[in-house]
């Protein structure tokens, strides 16, 4: 079902955890299957300096969260906003069709985190 890259990210997910003093936090839930993801970012000079995630979900959900964190580290916020769930699936070498829509919500959580960061900043 899953290719080797997905299995690798599922078995050894990168950047798991929380960031206590995160600059932005994003959370998404799939209504369809109940998967849930929480993403924490640290921002420095407009770039994502650190990123951590927590995910409740299937193999695809965990692997896409992990892959996303690898993809965004060091990116500017604008660059990061352009990353889509499809990009994550591509980086993973593809996901099964049934998994595309419901378990691949990492990019959504990222965008939420960036919005959260921006909201906090504009509030300052």
């Amino acid at each position: 079902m899953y290719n080797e890259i997905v299995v690798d990210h599922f078995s050894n997910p990168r950047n798991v955890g929380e960031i206590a003093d995160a600059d932005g936090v994003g959370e998404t839930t799939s209504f369809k299957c109940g998967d849930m993801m929480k993403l924490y970012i640290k921002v420095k000079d407009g770039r994502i300096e650190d990123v951590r995630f927590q995910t409740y979900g299937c193999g695809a959900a965990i692997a896409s969260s992990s892959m996303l964190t690898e993809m965004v580290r060091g990116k500017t916020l604008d660059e990061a906003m352009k990353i889509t769930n499809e990009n994550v699936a591509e980086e993973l070498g593809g996901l099964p069709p049934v998994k595309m829509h419901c378990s691949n919500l990492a990019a959504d959580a990222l965008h939420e985190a960036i919005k959260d960061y921006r909201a906090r900043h504009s509030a300052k």
Partner: protein
Amino acid sequence: MKNRLIYMDHGATTPVREEVLEAMLPFFKELYGNPSSLHSPGREVRRAVEEARGKTARSLGADPEEIYFTASGTEANNIALRGAAKQHGKPGHIITSSIEHHAVYEVCRDLEREGYRVTYLPVDQFGMVDPADLEKAITPDTFIISIMSANNEIGTLQPVRELGWIAKKHDILFHSDAVQVVGQLPVDLNELPVDFLSLSAHKFNGPKGVGALFMRKRTEVTPLYRGGSQEKKIRPGTENVPGIIGLSRAIELAVSEIPQKKEKLTALRDRLISGFLEIEEVILNGHPGLRLPGNVNVSFKHIEGESVLLSLDLEGVAVSSGSACSSGSEEPSHVLIAIGLDHSVAHGSIRFSLGLGSSEEDVDFVLGKIPGIVKRLREISPTYHKH
């Protein structure tokens, strides 16, 4: 299936055992005649098919003429339910449970769309139907009741005898989907007050692609398929001869071994259950005692079933999350919802189903691996708060 596979998905399907395959083999290349043919090679195969029917009947306390071979448990369920509905001739009332397999549940949904009324009886937290509820649900136009013998996901055994007597008292047809029970626990149709019973060979170490419907004498259904006069026109089409031979050998062996198998699997099952329950925030789904000997179904809170399934798969352990038939769908199982689990707990359920080849070593291997897997996945989970 490479090196060391620990197969704990016997509820989904089982390997064909050696004796069964051996019985089937002559019917591919040598005894290949069409049982409907009048010539000797055809008649020889006809005899073999009728012997197989006899064996199957004897294993269940039925008469040979009450056994109709089908292509699957699904087909047996469809013929019984929809065939009885067609025979009934006009819309009426059907009673079933809220935890049936899709091959009963979806037929009922379909019949509802065609004007039949269907009552889906609730089950208690263990997945058990209350006979009093059945009694209450009966209306003057109820013509068939279908309650499974054991649930495929959580393994709960239903009080089929009691339910069947209620149906009989009211002169209503009674069907039981016994796909998970035949070959695991004794079924004696001499005593069991059912009119229809479905079974499937691949669940008791027989081949895939063959099942059977028991239909009691003087019961009638309108056939769904039309064609030749095979299986008394209830199920036309050239017989799956090797499959039928395989089914009959498999049921004969399975039924003769029930006592030992039941004892062995019950012990393994309970060992697995106690092991799992030592982990925090684990709940057992289904009935603690009245369950299939080989069935364990647990929910590991804060983690999603598929990720446990995958982690075990990477260790060479095959299990299932929800029912095999509904995988590919991401909806939580209707069975787990019916016993009152909330969605997130339902999503964390895993079925370990033991069978012929299961051993204590398998169980201990799994018990050794699970705590680590659960710990790892919970650490990733946003809902798990370390204390």
